């Protein structure tokens, strides 16, 4: 029998009280993601149901983990939930205002579905280009942006409205379905990158961009030079196979810009495949230090696949086998240049003593208070965020 406030980590269905069992039964998903192991899973169909689950869990001190597509569950601090709340049944595209360029979707809708729908209208939500099974909610919660960030800014800039089931069990809406809005505190942007710390992101309204007709990818030798000379490229990416400038605009403009770069343009945008190494890292520095970061990573891991976003300041790279010392050296370099190195994926125990996030954020006290405000019982993905939040 579960008692409020007691430690029930890892409780299996058989040890749960009758009310908990009933809830689990009622909201049982059609299929269970393999990532979640034998921990019970619920899949609310409405944000209100998610809030109900959280209120229930708060009363009983049950730790809740959130899962979308399950592609990024290892990101951040490790959690051991008593129950997983899956967004698998929050799977509706609620409203697409084609002419106003806004889209309302529930959190569990796969990114790929959203972009496929939008492509039919020559629009995009500028979500990550190679999403796999990732969901909109997962991308928003993880605060992940795609490669087109150089031109269109981070995902954060496109989240207009959020409906949140908070850690204290209420449904809260913030923002609005208009492209410009300063009505009250911007909880929508706060939710971006919150890693589930505030509660479950149930639904979002995204600002869309029209996709111009012209598109080309031009291989270049000097990505920093190309970045400086090209007016507003979509992306300037460097990988282990070379560098390329991604162009967008009217077909005439793309042709002209291709010529200015003196390169051969391939029509369309061929985005690099995701890195599939077992260990993956993200180095983030001010754009001026990006080239230095690439050199540093290449020196430490000559074989590593990498994706460097020039002008943005992020390099992700993958490593096959653990080399703690070199990983530490890269983090040391990044932090020494005012940036960070985040561990995106690593097998358990392979990097002893390394915090997934590195140095905690400067305003730690405020971080704690904001977390407390939305998750007073500390049940929502606890320990995911830096500083054990």
């Amino acid at each position: 029998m579960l008692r409020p406030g007691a430690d029930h980590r890892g409780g299996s269905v058989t040890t749960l009280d009758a009310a908990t069992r009933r809830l689990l039964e009622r909201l049982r998903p059609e299929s269970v993601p393999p990532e979640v192991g034998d921990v019970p899973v619920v899949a609310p169909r409405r944000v209100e149901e998610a809030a109900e689950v959280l209120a229930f869990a708060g009363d009983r001190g049950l730790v809740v983990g959130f899962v979308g597509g399950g592609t990024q569950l290892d990101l951040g601090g490790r959690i051991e939930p008593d129950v997983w709340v899956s967004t698998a049944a929050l799977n509706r595209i609620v409203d697409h205002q084609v002419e106003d360029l806004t889209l309302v979707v529930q959190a569990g809708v796969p990114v790929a579905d959203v972009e496929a729908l939008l492509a039919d209208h020559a629009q995009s939500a500028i979500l990550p280009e190679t999403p796999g099974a990732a969901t909109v909610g997962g991308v928003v919660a993880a605060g992940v942006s795609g490669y087109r960030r150089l031109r269109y800014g981070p995902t954060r800039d496109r989240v207009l409205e959020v409906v949140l089931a908070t850690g204290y069990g209420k449904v809260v809406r913030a923002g609005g379905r208009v492209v410009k809005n300063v009505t009250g505190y911007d909880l929508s942007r706060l939710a971006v990158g919150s890693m589930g710390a505030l509660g479950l992101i149930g639904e979002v309204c995204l600002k869309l961009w029209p996709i111009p007709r012209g598109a080309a990818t031009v291989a270049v030798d000097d990505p920093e030079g190309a970045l400086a000379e090209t007016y507003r490229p979509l992306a300037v990416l460097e990988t282990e196979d070379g560098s390329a400038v991604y162009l967008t605009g009217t077909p005439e403009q793309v042709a002209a810009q291709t010529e200015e770069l003196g390169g051969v343009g391939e029509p369309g945008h061929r985005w690099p495949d995701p890195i599939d190494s077992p260990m993956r890292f993200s180095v983030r520095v001010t754009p001026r230090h990006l080239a230095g970061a690439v050199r540093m990573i290449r020196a430490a891991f000559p074989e590593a696949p990498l994706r460097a976003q020039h002008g943005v300041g992020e390099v992700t790279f993958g490593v096959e086998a653990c080399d703690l010392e070199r990983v530490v050296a890269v983090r040391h370099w990044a932090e020494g240049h005012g940036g960070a190195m985040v561990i995106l994926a690593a097998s358990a125990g392979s990097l002893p003593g390394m915090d997934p996030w590195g140095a905690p954020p400067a305003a730690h006290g405020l971080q704690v208070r904001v977390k407390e405000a939305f998750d007073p019982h500390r049940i929502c993905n606890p320990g995911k965020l830096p500083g054990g939040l």
Partner: protein
Amino acid sequence: MLRPMDLIAALEGVVGSDRVRAHPLDRRVFAKDAGVKDGPVAAVVFPESAEETAGCVRVARAAGVPVVPRGAGTGLAGGAVPIEPSVMVVMTRMNRIVEVDEQSRTAWVGPGVINLDLSRDLASTGLHFAPDPSSQQSCTIGGNVGTNAGGPHCLAEGTTVAHILAVEMVTADGDIVIVGGDHPDPVGLDLRAVVVGSEGTMGVTTRVLVKLTENPPAVRTLLIGFATVEDAAATVSEVIASGLVPAALEMMDRAMVRAVENYVHAGYPTDAAAVLLAEVAGHAVGVDAEADMIARIAADNDATMVRLAQNDAERALLWKGRKSAFGAIAQSAPDYYLHDTVVPRTRLVEVLSQIYEIGERYGIALLNVFHAGDGNLHPLVSFDAAVPGELDRVMAAATEMVRVSIEAGGSLSGEHGIGMEKRDLMGLVFGPDDLDAQARLREAFDPDGVLNPGKILPEGSRCFDRAPTIGAAP
């Protein structure tokens, strides 16, 4: 609790006697922003560093007197107007551009830097600060951060929040902290995102890391006249739906055009019922085709004239007309009240006609000048507050206009903020749980109500029991 004289002495202890003012005249000057209300000032201080700012906050806190941060006081929502006797912390002396990183396209600037000065100072670098409120000649970057200011060119570039990477601020406790960072996606909750637009209620901004934007190599500016407001509004909706992203898309109605023409002689057609100012910017090869496309959409909607600015001087004059709109009104009426709602861009035609109808019904002089491309409406009412009952009538009409915007799926404020002006209308867009969540957030930053109390959230927003804190037994 300090007595008034002790408060002033304590503030003088922090910044010296020449930078504390409490003369009745100073109190009057700083009692008001550019909106319609004023409030009680206990003292005015002009800190010159983050440390001094922190000192002022600590003194006020100890004295039990609220702190109201203030920039240039051009705000229109009463954000910088005190509700109870307060220490006005005026940031205009912290007006240095501290450091420019041309390669990363960022700059650390003081909160007192004037918006336009920043872009002017950067001219030789080929970069600029994209948010360009019409008040940019006088408003401060700290104020822009406070209100998440917008401007004509925010249509393509996004509002201030998209251009702020980090904020150094003094918290309600008097600590100096930095939220955000110079690299992408600093770890932890993105507090910078809520500090921007928090109207001085979460901290006093003492330094800002802004993102700079490359100047476009080519720009085309079009002035388009229409015989009806509906034709102009339909053109806006169609341009947005066409897949074009203009750099700016601004609209003015006849009353506004006439007032502006009278004032700056920008060459606007005074016989048109509505005028659009449209701009496209980008690579030289793209802009002509885009300008043509806008002209074509306008022609399909029965535009009566289309003029393409032939050179920079003409372009500057057209913009001068737009940006002088409020100055033009100030010249002709003793007072004006400026609305700021947002509607979905597909609903412009119908909401505008409702707004004219409300204006007529209340018998008020209504002019429109607004960021049409964003659906951000700015109906402007000129009136004389000295006439008894006038202000009440204007405010009653204002509330109706807000209602029709919200009923069309819109929002209470697009860029001016909530402040005290719209605080009590928040319930029109948010329910009790929504307001309670916002109140919790504010409480996390300022549990004792030191910073700009009484703004943004209506009284009673924190409608549920206070949450127990982490670690406390449930």
